[in-house]
Structures are given as C-alpha cells and as structure tokens.
C-alpha cells in the first residue's frame, strides 16, 4: 500500500500513531513492511491457507462475535442434505462435472421445505463459468430464499456454522507454516491481534489489491476474507471492512458503468440468448424478488428509457430486444483468441495497452497483427499502436511489417486536465474534475470521440431493421466550443437520472418500473440531485466531520460505508460508544448518525416482513445486507459462484509444490485455454522450479505509458529488474547489477539483477522455495525515456472462473544468468523450455 497507494497509506500511519497494530503480508518486503509492526513473508498463491487458518482459529476457539454473527449472517441457516464438502470429496464440492469442468450448484442450496429450485432458476456454477456471471453480484446478491430454515443454537451439523467449522478444521497453524512459509509464532501473533481487536469496542480492517484478485482462485480469496470479517463482526462498521485498493483512477467507475462484456451499468447482467426470452423472462432469472435487488425492473427499465427515450414503451418491452445477446464468454482473453482465429476484424483500444499490459503479450500481438483495422487512442504512441513496426516478433522473424495487413489509426487523446468529467475512486467516491485548458492539436477527449463517431454513424443509417437501435438511440448532447465538445455535465445528468417532470432525481428509491423515470446507471442515481453536480462539491475536509459527506459524492445515495446498519446492534443501538456510526433514533423514529444510513430511514429495528412481501419490504429491521435476497452476510454462498460455496485452498495453475490438502491440485473450474498460443508450465516441473510474482513500483504506472515518458520518474526507476534473494543468486549464479534471463513456456525476457534480502527464500513442505519478483512497467515504446523487456510476456493465460481475471500473481519460472538470446536463438531456447 505504501508503494502503490502512498497517499492513502497516510491513514494507516495515522491509525498506527493512535495505537493500531499494522501487519503486512506479502511475498516481498516493501516500504509497507518497513512501516508495519510485523511483516509476514508468504509464498505467493497460498493466502487461502493463511486466511482459512485464521477462520479455524476463530471458530475452533469460539472467538466469533456471536451476537453479530447470529443476527446478521447466515451462520444459523441449514444447508441441503445433498451438499458434500471438499473434505469428503478430496478437493471437489458436490455437483462437479469433470466433462465440462463446471459445477451444478443444486446441492449447495439451503435446506427448504419445498426442495431446491428448479434447474433453470439456479444461479452460479456453469452459468457463471459461461459468462463471468458473478460480476453482476457487484450490487445484487444471488437469489436465495429470504426466510430459510435455521438453527439459532448453531449446533445442527447441517447449519452453516458447523459446516464452516468442519471445512476449515484442517487449516491449522502447522499447515500455514508448511504451505505459506509463515512461522507458527508469527501466525499466532496475527491471530491473537485480529481477534483481540474485533468485537463491540474495536474493529479490524483488511486491505488488499490485485495480489488477491489475480489468481485462479481470486474471487475465493476475497470470500475467505469476507467470512473472517463477518465472523469477527467487522463488516458495515467504522474501521472495519475488506478494502480493495484499486489501481487506476476510475477502475471502480469502469466497473460501475462498465465497458465490460457481461454487464450493463449498475451491475445489471447483459441478456443471454439462451437464458432470456424477453424482458419479463430476463428479470425473473436475474436474481431474487426480495431485498433491494427485487426492484431491478425499475433499474433496468429506467436504463432502457435513458438509452431509447420515447421509442421505449411498455408495449415493446422498453426496447429490451435492442440489447445484443451474449452466448458465453466474450471476455478480453477470449477476444484475443478470436483475433488470432480471425473472427474479430476491428478493434478499438482506448487508454489501454494490451500489447504489453495484458498476460501473454505474444498472443496479444499476434491477435493485433491479424486484424483488419485497429483504432488506438492514447497520449503517446503505445506499443499496441506500433507493434507492426517495432514489436519483438519482428526481431525474431515471426512477423514481417510488410506482411501485417492491419490498418492502424492512432488518435491522440486529451489528458485528465484537458477535459472535464468524473473519476470514481477506490471508495466509490465520484469526484468531478474541472477542465484546466484545451487539449493541443488533434487531441480530443474520449467523450468527443465516441460522441462524434456515434453522430457520424447515425448520419449514415439505413431503414434496415439492424439499424433501428442506432436510429432510435438518444444521442443529442449539447456541444460546446469550436471543437464541438459534448457537455460532460449533460452525460452525468443522464447517468444520474430524471423523473417524470424532467427534473433530476435524488435517489434510486425514486426509480419506477413503468417507464416514467430515466436513469443511465441506477447506483449513480442522485449524482445530479437538485440539478447540482454533486460530484463537484468541494467543501474542505477541515470544515467537515471525518466522514466528509460534502466532498464529492459516493454511490449509492452518498453513503460512505456500505451496509452501515450493521454498525448498530439488532435493537438499533451502537455496538459501543466508541464505534457509534449509524443508529436508530426512537424519538424521531428514524435511522441517523454520522453517515447516510444504508437502510430505509423509517424502517424500525423491530420491523418484521409480512408474508409474501417483496423487495426491501421482505427484509426485517435487523437485516443490514439489503442487496442480498435474505439481508444476511453470507458465510456460505449457496448460489452465485462458479467454483464452490466456500473457499478451499488450491495451488496456482503453475506451482512448484503439491497440494497437501486434497488430491485436487488446482481450482477444478479454472478457465484454461488449451491451444498452442497459450502454453503452460507443468505443475511441479523441475524445468520451472521457482515462484514468479509481478508487481508495481511507486515510481511507475501499469505498462509504463503514463510514467516512462516522464523524466523524473524514468530517472528514479530507469530499468527493468528482477528481485532475487542472495541464496537464489548463489544457486543460479546471478550477480547484483548484472543480467538475468527469466523463462516461462510463454517467453523469456532479460532484466537487471537486484540481489536483496527483500525476497526471502521460504521453507515450504520441508524444502526451500525461491521466489522471483518482477515489476511489469517496461516495454519497447510508449514514448518511454526508458525501455525494457515485457514482463507480461511471461504470464500464462489462465483465469478465475467467476470473473475471468488472469493469474498474474503466482506462477513458475526459471532464471538463468546473462542476457537473453536474440532472433532465432531466442525461439530455439523457448522451444527447449517448452518441450523439455
């Protein structure tokens, strides 16, 4: 955090100054480690063992926050008799189909009188494996029954609490030492600290980043942390939570208003051709009827009205059929394979640089070389725009410029100070940027580009039916200045929504399912409340409470801590004075506090839902997790995941060690591309004995296009290097400051050697495991004052089955002294490693 989010880290230091204890768990000693109370080096890819052992410590010693757990989680819920755990099936949960390598989640469901729901209604498992379905639960939970059978004594062997206890029983401190390389004494200190620091009076926070997500079990890493935090009562409370430190200025916004294949704005699923017949059918299949997600008709209809305006009517399902249909995985890596196979003809790359920034760089570039046309928009000539004249495959002779038929348009982009608009930061906060000056030359905002491209396309439409969604699209934003820049405020206002009177809406609770409201992204509804750009609010922090509600605007409804109803006890009183945040005011009969309550303001703690209630009315006054269909925090996920209802430790796809817990070595549902363009290192291969992990440096950003051209930053970190321990350096023959060649079956690259105690050899399964650290900021172009080999070329294309994120944080490699060969010799050496 101190390296990659330095200014955010000031708050960790503030907390430390007030007595907080800071632990840092990382394969590599960093600036964060230097400032922490304790540093725990860990083998990359083994975090579920560590977190699972913490869960086991809590459950085995009865250290959970019982009142919180009973009231706010599904600990008491009974699970179907058909469910079988990994502990019974040697690493598989019940429902696995080895043919398709997908799960049928039927047996994971809650125990119900009516039996499990019919097949076509079930969520998770194979559906998710087909289209990264879990993404849509970014705001809405899967559809579990709102009032399942429970055992409040938590003693029934089929209740979630007991299932968890059995499941994690083998995750012991001894196993942590053996698998993670963390000493038992260090584990004990961590376990003692987090349990002592949780409960009524205290809360503990976890902070993570892509070190947890970029794995074939990435979603389950976060699930493990969620279980731990729910057991300790650390969710929805100040000082608690599991905080994702996202790495790009508006990567949160890019998910909320997604340019992602499987979701629409506000985490509404893109319709699927073989699952959804029409609007009603879609809505029926896309979640439960209870909880706030039960209002999804209002959210979707308001979006369709924002896009197709008057053309969207009740009679035509509000133009629902204008939405193109998914039929499976259309994600980034599959798209690259489709480029190589020739079905993708045209590609827009906007502020992104997959030629060096995505896993398997060689596959990315072969894909680019096989396009008909490519549009690249960026500040500099990024490698994705120039691969045809200076890519590494020209040097090896695999590609020749004259043979590459791709037509390339490079359009220069406006910088962040040359346009106005909002970023959504890592805490869901929208902040408006004022424009400082006009962009130079041909540089334009992406808003300008897409608006004018749409305008030109719409001028050339036919009467053909396929053009109807474009003809009827609302595309009439006011233009400004000699460049005819569309007004970003007008776009933001459309996102924020308007009511039947045409006035801006205040909150998503005002959205209607009848087509009378329009809203481009329901979770952002209210960002233009009172016709004021709420994201532009700038009341200085020192003039506000620490919550700072008048700086920017956080979705939803300007709430700064999600699910903050859980900061009060079931009766609505703060758990303690010290941790008071949101509470029930009995005199005024409403929720109040330091933040906007993430709860219906007037719903009393003793509210009980009547029989047959829908949406939020079906949740009790003690159900804080209002997006979930049962209002509970899920310790066990009966639906909604592709790879199991609970996390289990699996080794990374490429690992030097055997999984001691199960015969199942790696996540059985992980997404693999079995084709020549996507080779893998075999597990436990002596050819690739070392663990490789990638990361960022403070002084650079992503693949370098925003940092390598900057003189100050280039001087601070001039050259690609790999970090190795003195022991590994001695074993391989590496010299500090000299050169090393790092090899995987994808490629081999050269880097300067940094021999350092920052990367420690770890004792794992009674042998020494060496890890190699590699920052990934270099490439050959991007206007860089410094250049270097592409670390991402080494990475495998193997994905988490829930969200299709690649495993770039834990793989295997070999390291050789000296520089890499050039030309044909490089290919020969690659072949040698690939086939042994």
């Amino acid at each position: 955090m101190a390296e990659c989010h330095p200014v955010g880290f000031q708050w960790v230091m503030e907390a430390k100054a007030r007595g907080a204890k800071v632990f840092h768990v990382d394969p590599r000693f960093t600036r964060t480690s230097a400032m922490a109370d304790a540093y725990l080096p860990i083998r990359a890819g083994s975090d579920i063992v560590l977190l699972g052992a913490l869960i086991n410590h809590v459950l085995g010693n009865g250290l959970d926050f019982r009142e919180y757990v009973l009231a706010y989680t599904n600990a008491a819920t009974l699970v179907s008799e058909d469910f079988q755990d990994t502990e019974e099936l040697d690493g598989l949960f019940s429902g696995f189909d080895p043919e398709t390598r997908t799960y049928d989640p039927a047996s994971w469901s809650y125990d119900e009188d009516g039996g499990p729901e019919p097949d076509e209604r079930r969520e998770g498992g194979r559906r998710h494996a087909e289209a990264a379905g879990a993404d849509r639960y970014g705001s809405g939970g899967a559809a579990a029954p709102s009032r399942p059978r429970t055992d409040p004594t938590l003693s029934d062997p089929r209740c979630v609490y007991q299932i968890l206890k059995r499941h994690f029983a083998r995750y012991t401190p001894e196993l942590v030492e053996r698998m993670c390389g963390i000493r038992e004494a260090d584990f004990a200190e961590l376990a003692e600290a987090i349990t002592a620091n949780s409960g009524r009076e205290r809360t503990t926070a976890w902070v993570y980043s892509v070190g947890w997500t970029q794995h074939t079990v990435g979603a389950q890493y976060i699930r493990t942390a969620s279980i731990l935090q729910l057991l300790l009562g650390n969710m929805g409370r100040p000082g608690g939570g599991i905080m994702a430190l996202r790495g790009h200025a508006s990567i949160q916004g890019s998910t909320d208003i997604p340019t992602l294949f499987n979701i629409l704005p506000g985490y509404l699923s893109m319709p699927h051709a073989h699952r959804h017949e029409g609007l009603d059918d879609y809505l029926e299949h896309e979640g439960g009827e209870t909880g706030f997600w039960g209002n999804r008709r209002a959210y979707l209809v308001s979006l369709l009205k924002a896009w197709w305006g008057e053309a969207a009517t009740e009679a035509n399902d509000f133009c629902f059929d204008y939405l193109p249909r998914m039929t499976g995985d259309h994600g980034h890596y599959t798209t690259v394979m489709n480029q190589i196979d020739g079905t993708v003809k045209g590609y827009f790359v906007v502020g992104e640089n997959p030629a060096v920034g995505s896993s398997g760089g060689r596959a990315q570039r072969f894909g680019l070389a096989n396009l008909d046309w490519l549009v690249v928009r960026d500040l500099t000539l990024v490698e994705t725009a120039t691969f045809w004249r200076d890519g590494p495959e020209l040097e090896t002779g695999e590609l020749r410029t004259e043979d590459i038929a791709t037509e390339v348009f490079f359009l220069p982009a406006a910088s962040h100070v040359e346009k106005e608009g909002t970023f959504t930061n890592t805490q869901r906060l929208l902040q408006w940027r004022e424009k400082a000056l006009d962009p130079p030359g041909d540089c334009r905002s992406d808003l300008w580009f897409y608006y004018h491209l749409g305008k030109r396309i719409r001028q050339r439409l036919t009467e053909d039916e396929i053009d109807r969604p474009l003809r009827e699209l609302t595309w009439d934003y006011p233009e400004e200045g000699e460049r005819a820049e569309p007004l970003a405020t007008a776009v933001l206002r459309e996102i924020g929504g308007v009511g039947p009177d045409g006035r801006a809406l205040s909150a998503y609770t005002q959205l209607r399912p009848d087509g009378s409201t329009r809203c481009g992204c329901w979770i952002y509804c209210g960002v233009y409340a009172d016709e004021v750009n709420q994201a532009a609010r700038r009341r200085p922090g020192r003039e506000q409470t620490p919550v700072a509600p008048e700086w920017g605007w956080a979705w939803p409804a300007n709430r700064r801590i999600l699910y903050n109803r859980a900061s009060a006890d079931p009766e609505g009183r703060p758990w303690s004075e010290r941790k008071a945040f949101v509470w029930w005011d009995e005199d005024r009969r409403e929720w109040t506090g330091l933040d906007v309550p993430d709860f219906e303001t007037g719903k009393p703690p003793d509210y009980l839902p009547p029989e047959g209630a829908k949406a939020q009315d079906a949740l009790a006054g003690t159900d804080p997790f209002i997006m979930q269909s049962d209002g509970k925090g899920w310790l066990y996920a009966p639906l909604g995941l592709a790879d199991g209802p609970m996390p289990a430790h699996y080794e990374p796809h490429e690992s030097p060690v055997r999984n001691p817990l199960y015969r199942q070595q790696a996540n059985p549902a992980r997404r693999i591309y079995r084709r020549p363009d996507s080779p893998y290192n075999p597990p436990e291969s002596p050819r690739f004995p070392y663990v490789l992990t990638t990361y960022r440096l403070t002084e650079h950003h992503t693949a370098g296009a925003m940092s390598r051209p900057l003189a100050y930053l280039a001087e601070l970190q001039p050259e690609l290097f790999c970090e190795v321990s003195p022991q590994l350096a001695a074993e391989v023959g590496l010299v500090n400051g000299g050169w090393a060649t790092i090899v995987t079956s994808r490629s081999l690259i050269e880097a300067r050697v940094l021999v350092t105690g920052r990367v420690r050899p770890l004792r794992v399964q009674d042998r020494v495991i060496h890890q190699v650290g590699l920052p990934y900021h270099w490439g050959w172009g991007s206007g860089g004052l410094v250049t270097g080999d592409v670390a991402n070329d080494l990475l495998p294309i193997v994905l988490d089955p829930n969200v299709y994120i690649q495993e770039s944080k834990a793989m295997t490699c070999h390291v050789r002294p000296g520089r890499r060969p050039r030309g044909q010799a490089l290919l020969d050496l690659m072949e040698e490693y690939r086939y042994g």
Partner: protein
Amino acid sequence: MFSRWSLIRQLRGEDGRRDAARSARTDALRPRTERADTVARSVCPYCAVGCGQLVYVKDGRVSQIEGDPDSPISRGRLCPKGSASKQLVTHPGRQTHVLYRRPHGTEWEPLDLDTAMEMITDRVLRTRRETWQQTDEGKVVRRTMGIAGMGGATLDNEENYLMKKLYTALGAIQVENQARI
C-alpha cells in the same frame, strides 16, 4: 550595492543558512502558483486513491500541478507520480496529431482528424454489416462479433457511459476494460 551580495555578506561572517543566503533576486522570486492565470480543481489520474490536484495554467500552458490541501482524502499530498503529473501533460513525447498506417505499410502517414473520423466510421459500418449475426442456434442475438473494444480505467464515467451505450446500440458485445485485468 556590492554589500547586498549574499556571498560578501557571508564572507563577512553572516550565517549563510539564514538571511545572508537571500539576494535581491531570491526576494523577487514568486511561486509559479501565484502567477498563474487560472487554477482548476482536478483529481490525480494514476491510482484510485483519488488525491485532489490543483492545476495551474499560465499563458495557455500548465505551469504547475500541486496537491489540493482541501481534499479530505489527500490533505494536499501527492506521491511521486502525482507530483510528476505536470510532465504527464507537457512532456515532448506526447503525440498531438493523428497518424495512419495503411495495410502492409512500413511507415506512419499523417492524416487529418476529420478524414480519420470518416474512415473509422466507414470501417465500423462495413465490418458491422459483414459480420452481423441475427441469430445463434435459433435464438435472436442481434450482434456483431467482428468489432471489439478494450478500454483503460482512467476513462471518465461519462466516457465509459457513451462507449457502452454506442457499442451496445451497434451490437458490439466484446467490450472490455482494464477492470477485467
């Protein structure tokens, strides 16, 4: 006059770390931020902490970028990247003109923006029509699998919104973002 020289004052025994270090020139120096024509309230474009930036403009150029002390998130601080971000917008390696590479071409060629926009419009419409898929295994899909998009996560919300809206109306479904990666 010479007696005002900082060096002479220091040679005479005055403390060179205090007032004797000052000269008439240093006394006349003013911070760039004070001489700016305008200042815009902005946000750092690197990581997702969202530090406040103040962007100072003088004579039509960015003259300085500083942390915004009003921000309750950053309290005026910026990291090495945020502090260097004036160079991000002013460095000489920035491309400011459209470039075109024809199929099999060996060099970039200049192209004016309007022509580029028209050519891209042509390509989109042509590819869309050539790769249009109305049905898949008997189900209506109404899409093109011939056009794909990949966006970075430093795009504004408003930009992402127009992109998703236009791509969806075009029937382009392979629309992805850094957020996947």
